[in-house]
């Protein structure tokens, strides 16, 4: 068993990299409590569902784009400019960050098409906490901010 990657509450000791691709790295967001909520959700999915989502992540990581709006789309201003991966009932919300990174903040299961406003707000909050933690770690490492 890989440390931090078993089911249950996953902490920052887990590997936060979902996929390393040729164009992008897809990362799991770490929230203010040091937890990885999207990875926790992912770990609860069936094998087939996990493969479906990873195939989408891999596509974005390798090509830098997903053409199908059925699978990946911007939520626009009303969705806090977040991006949504969608595969059957599964949704994963996240956003791009400098340094060729895409951060996955939240995973949810939705039977209807539209996301709840609360899901969007939760994803935005997790991303903000992730960014804050990221800045703190970089200050401690003596590194400057990421650049595109």
């Amino acid at each position, binding site marked *: 068993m890989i*440390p*931090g*990657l078993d089911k249950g509450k996953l902490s920052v000791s887990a*590997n936060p990299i979902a*996929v390393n691709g040729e164009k992008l790295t897809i990362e799991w967001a770490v929230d203010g409590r040091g937890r990885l909520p999207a990875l926790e959700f992912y770990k609860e999915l069936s094998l087939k569902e996990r493969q479906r989502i*990873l195939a989408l992540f891999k*596509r974005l990581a390798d090509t830098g784009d997903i053409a199908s709006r059925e699978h990946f789309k911007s939520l626009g201003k009303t969705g806090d400019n977040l991006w949504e991966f969608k595969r*059957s009932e599964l949704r994963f919300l996240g956003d791009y960050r400098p340094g060729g990174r895409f951060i996955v903040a939240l995973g949810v299961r939705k039977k209807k098409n539209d996301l709840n406003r609360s899901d969007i707000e939760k994803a935005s909050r997790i991303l903000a906490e992730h960014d804050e933690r990221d800045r703190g770690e970089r200050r401690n490492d003596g590194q400057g901010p990421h650049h595109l």
Partner: protein
Amino acid sequence: MMDKGLTTYEEMELEDARGLRQEELIIEVTEALARALRSSGLTQSELAARLGKTKGFVSQIMGGGNNLTLRTLADVAGAIGCRVQVKLVSEKKGSVALQRSSSVSQERRRKIS
């Protein structure tokens, strides 16, 4: 930096690479269809009409929900004005064909010089 082990993708490759490749192929096909449909300027409704199917049928195909048969794929591609080409590539980086081509090029360069 502390080694945090495998990425989620690498973990899945160990758990079930076969199932992962199947899902990746589904995404590759739906991506090819999405790009072709966009280039054609057709809407999903127009494509459905050309196929004599419902918009829901097209939506399922574009969403990778169905296990698409080769016959259906050929029909959908044809309705967009395309043909399907299949290419199998080596899992190892640099296919045999590419390696041979590279060797031939080196041989040619030697002869020229």
